[in-house]
């Protein structure tokens, strides 16, 4: 796969807005036909990155390559990419047909061919028969599909999507997620998808790049970023996590022995190089934790004695909130497989919480943000006037 020319390659790109660094020395390779998501909180630089690929912003440093071709300062209208904008940006004075045909018209495609391809594109997004409507006569989901057809009709090498589902309600959103994924498989175009919704990214992507403060923290498959997060931020941002503080006691090739403040010994996978004596945070997922009665023998692996603080039944699973002896909280999510026959615990019960060491990650304390970086709010404000 690596011998192929990547669909998009970012070579140490940075973007500065005045003194604010929106994107900081980012390198990334996106393969042909991949569904790649850029995930991060608002102001992390994901939209700026997308806009640099699209040609709406030019990188302050570094290079954007599309299909192996350096883009330099090439403007948006000369790049072989198309964009689905956050608010769709459909032309309100044009019909669905005119909106969809716009790109081909600008490329001076013959009228007859335009007509054929517009009908095909609208068919593809299930909007046949809506040609003469104006955008404001369509529902949010339909407008979304017009935006998709308008972009895909040009058969771009890469489709850029900037939080395209953000304006839709939850149910429609879920349906559109699957539809988008399916569409991407059919057209075989590289999708670069910007979102702050971790669930959306996990559902649709082949790979996810998690960003924070202009930097790419981790790139990997949904399984990789979820199961083996590279930093505490990634663990926290994608899904829920439990955290325990401790100190490194021993270090082997792929395992670290960590002593908690309360004295228990835990084993974990180090996320980075650790040295003995260093302070670390252990993270593990709520659904990996098993609960057993406190009067039974201590389970194997990582285990800690707790008391049940709260039990919340939410249909398909039950959430237990446990409290360790030194007042740390552990959240446990248990699938309600056995129905009412399942062994239940009540608030006040003494229990063992146990989880496998191979599903525990040890992080160094989050690296400090270097001076010169500003809060995400400032980044957003700095980006505003450029619009």
């Amino acid at each position: 796969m690596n011998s192929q020319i990547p669909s998009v390659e970012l070579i140490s790109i940075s973007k500065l807005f005045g003194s604010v660094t929106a994107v900081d020395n980012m390198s990334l390779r996106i393969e042909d036909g991949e569904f790649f998501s850029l995930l991060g909180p608002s102001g992390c630089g994901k939209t700026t990155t997308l806009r640099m690929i699209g040609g709406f912003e030019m990188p302050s440093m570094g290079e954007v390559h599309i299909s192996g071709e350096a883009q330099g300062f090439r403007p948006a209208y000369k790049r072989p990419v198309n964009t689905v904008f956050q608010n769709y940006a459909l032309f309100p004075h044009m019909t669905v047909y005119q909106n969809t045909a716009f790109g081909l018209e600008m490329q001076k495609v013959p009228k007859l061919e335009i007509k054929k391809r517009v009908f095909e594109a609208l068919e593809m997004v299930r909007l046949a028969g809506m040609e003469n409507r104006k955008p404001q006569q369509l529902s949010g989901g339909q407008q979304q599909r017009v935006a998709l057809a308008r972009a895909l009709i040009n058969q771009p090498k890469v489709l850029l999507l900037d939080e395209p589902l953000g304006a839709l309600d939850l149910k429609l959103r879920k349906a559109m997620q699957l539809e988008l994924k399916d569409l991407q498989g059919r057209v075989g175009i590289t999708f670069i998808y910007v979102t702050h919704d971790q669930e959306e990214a996990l559902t649709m992507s082949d790979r996810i790049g998690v960003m924070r403060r202009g930097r790419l923290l981790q790139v990997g498959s949904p399984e990789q970023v979820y199961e083996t997060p590279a930093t505490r931020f990634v663990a926290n941002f994608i899904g829920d996590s439990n955290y325990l503080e401790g100190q490194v006691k021993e270090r082997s090739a792929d395992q670290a022995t960590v002593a908690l403040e309360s004295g228990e010994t835990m084993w974990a996978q180090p996320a980075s190089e650790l040295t003995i004596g260093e302070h670390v945070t252990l993270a593990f997922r709520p659904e990996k934790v098993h609960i057993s009665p406190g009067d039974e023998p201590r389970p194997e692996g990582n285990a800690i004695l707790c008391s049940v603080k709260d039990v919340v039944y939410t249909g398909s699973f039950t959430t237990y909130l446990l409290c360790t002896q030194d007042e740390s909280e552990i959240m446990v999510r248990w699938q309600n497989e056995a129905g009412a026959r399942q062994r239940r615990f009540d608030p006040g019960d003494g229990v063992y919480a146990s989880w496998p060491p191979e599903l525990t990650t040890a992080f160094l304390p989050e690296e400090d943000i270097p001076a010169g970086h500003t809060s995400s709010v400032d980044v957003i404000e700095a980006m505003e006037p450029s619009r």
Partner: protein
Amino acid sequence: MINLSPRQRRISLAVLISPSLFWLIVFFLFPLLIVVAMSFGQRGTYGGIEWNLTLENFARLADPLYIKIFWRSFSIAGLTTIICLLLGYPLAFWIATRPPNRRTLFIMLLIVPFWTNFLVRTYAWILILRDQGLINVAWTGPIHAAAVWLAANLPGVFWSSLSNLTAEPLGLFGTNLAIIIGLVYGWLPDMVLPCYAAIERFDFSLSEAAEDLYANRLRTFLRVIFPLTLPGILAGSMLVFIPSLGAYVTPDLLGGARSVMIGNVIYSQFMAARDYPFGAAVAMGLMILMVIGTVIYFRAGVKSTDTVQPVEAAR
């Protein structure tokens, strides 16, 4: 809203609109009817009005002299509108794309000069345009001197003809050009403000979308920005064209004997010739032409913008 019976609602509506309705009837509709009636009257021997129904006044309008004045007025107003648009739209565009706090400042700067009396500001243009005015002092002074010196030291016909040209003042004052300059100056903000309002409302993600779909800057402007800001252009053009067409002060002060506009004809009929019926007929003729023109103009404009609305529906 408070629940009202249909009857109560009718009463409250009547109470609310009656002051403005009263105002319009007494001070607008009634005088207008007087002018209409007057235009069918006849001038009395001593300047009064004889109310014998006649179309004589309207027949007089067909005189080539008046047709020429009407034509000149329309040309001057039309040119004024076009120049205002060419100057005002780019200015409005520039202001509307500044950071929000700056925009207010620039709009203020645009309006501030108009706090001074219109007559005074028009009078100031006399001082600029007349033969001994600012422009001609520079033209026949330093510019002439420089042209003479260059003609003496450099070869070519250009400098010698320039030195001949600059020997005489430009003769701006009293021309149609002087009137157009005065009108453009006077009505430019009326073009800028509606254009600004339309451009400021324009969602610039639409121009990015056009660019994304392979439209270069010119095409983005022609296909997306222009049609979506057309309502502002239409409104601004009307706000400039109508007062320019009926202008009186500007042609009176800056124009000469050969650049009389309809406003001056109406004034002179009422005030100098004391021919009220003919003055009323000229005013009526102007009004009828304006109404016809406005209807055609907005029909054409509405056709191309009938569904233009802010893109809120997309949210």
